[in-house]
């Protein structure tokens, strides 16, 4: 699904290098590493917002750099760490914005678009929120809405930048479980950056570990091992 081929990412100088990594459909990968190691930079590079310094990334055998803007947003959706809610923007209209790559020049939604939106909302369990304003629901609910928006974009790949950072423990667990279930059901490939090592361990997620300037994939791990790796300078 995603092939990361010996890339180097960073703004001006190299922050993080990777080996040859292959991420598959139907799985949630956890991107872990200490603050400032380059997790967000890597995710930014994967969205095409930041050019790669070296190497190449391909999504389903298409080179990232060869994809047009609209082709790219039909392949990769992004959930940011915090959606603060917007005054007078309803949940259903917010989720509907995920259909933007598919709508006409005036952004008109078809009945088919609305079907996708309703189904996704049901799958994530936020049907009851649809008529509410996004600035009047809780942080946990808002984050689920952000995930729903990424899902209606119908991309095979979803990148999530610390989606659990502002949630309480139970909401973290809930969000993670929803992501895992949906990735299996819909055969999506998800990559989420997080500091919740214990949750990832419990859910047995494969890890993308960033430490001492290197990115590597670890399918099975125990906490001590990872902590030791991460503590290296």
């Amino acid at each position, binding site marked *: 699904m995603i092939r990361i081929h010996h890339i180097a990412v960073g703004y001006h100088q190299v922050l993080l290098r990777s080996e040859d990594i292959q991420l598959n459909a139907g799985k949630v990968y956890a991107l872990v590493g200490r603050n400032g190691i380059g997790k967000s930079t890597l995710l930014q590079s994967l969205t095409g917002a930041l050019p790669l310094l070296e190497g190449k990334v391909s999504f389903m055998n298409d080179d990232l750099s060869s994809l047009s803007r609209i082709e790219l947003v039909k392949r990769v959706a992004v959930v940011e760490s915090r959606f603060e809610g917007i005054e007078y923007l*309803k949940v259903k209209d917010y989720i509907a914005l995920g259909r933007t790559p598919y709508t006409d020049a005036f952004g008109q939604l078809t009945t088919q678009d609305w079907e996708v939106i309703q189904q996704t909302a049901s799958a994530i369990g936020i049907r009851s929120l649809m008529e509410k304003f996004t600035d009047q629901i809780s942080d946990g609910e808002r984050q689920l809405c952000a995930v729903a928006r990424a899902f209606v974009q119908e991309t095979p790949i979803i990148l999530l930048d610390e989606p659990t950072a502002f949630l309480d423990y139970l909401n973290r667990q809930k969000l993670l479980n929803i992501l895992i279930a949906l990735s299996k059901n819909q055969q999506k490939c998800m990559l989420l950056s997080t500091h919740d090592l214990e949750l990832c361990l419990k859910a047995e997620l494969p890890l993308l570990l960033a430490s001492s300037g290197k990115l590597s994939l670890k399918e099975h791990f125990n906490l001590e091992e990872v902590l030791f790796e991460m503590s290296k300078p």
Partner: protein
Amino acid sequence: MKDKSLRSLIICLLGLLPIAMYLHLMSGQIELSFSSYWKALFDFNPKDTYQVLIREFRLPRMVMALVAGAGLSLSGMLMQTLFKNPLAGPYVLGINSGASLLIALSMMTGIQFFQSNFGLIGTALIGAMGAGLLMMSVAQRLKSQISLLLVGLMFGSFTAALVSMMESKAGAESLKSFTMWSMGSLQQVTFEQLPLILTTFILSVILVFLAVKPLNVLVLGEKSAGLLGIHIQRTRLFILGITALLAGLVTAFCGPIAFVGMAIPNLTRILFRTTHHTTLICGNLLIGALFLLGMDSFIQLLEGQFSIPLNAFTSLVGAPFVVFLVMRKIK
């Protein structure tokens, strides 16, 4: 609120518009019959003083109140969405100042081309666009919504200083015409200028409707909009361009009019409770036009006793409203 009630609200406002236009025409100091309006338009007799009065003063002023109110509100809405900041507007962000600066420059140089209609619109447009681009580049480096307001204010003071330096060098004639212009008035437009003004206005409104999709997505901010496939650079220039066109047009012919462009889009949003821009565009056009028609009718009614400059009057209402907004929700 449901879509149906939004529609009926728009229809209500639409119904109020002809009434406000009629009241504005009737609120002048000299009473004029409806039939003289009819004749002035379709059977004009240049010897009839009343008909001349209508053609040269009443009608242009009414049309300008409508265009200025609607145009400023719409450009304010565009800026608030683009900057993702409810305090943005053509006046506070110095779009007017940019236009003023260039207009002052052209008026005081006394070059004939700049006094023509196209020259005036052109200079105002360039000034407005320049200020818009400047603000855009500054805004990207700012974190809080309120700092943008401060930067706009500083830009306003800076241009005001430049303008007063020019004033001290200017001749009496050009100084007078600039001072009159800078007080803001709907009275300076002639009947012959109306077609040009209306065409530019209608063209800009059509362009705004073409930008509905990117505007709806920009509500999420530029970064998220980009991740949904919106071409940010192009959209930014397009929206700033229309903003400058609308604000520049109004500023060129009416002088600076404070706060309308910031207050009305907020009022519209509070009233309609939506972020959908098709609705917001209609709302801003209608409420903006109604507001300025109402304001100017009031000024006309008082004109017998004492005359208030339009700019002063809109500030009187607008400034407290901004304070209200800041207390309500600004970070």
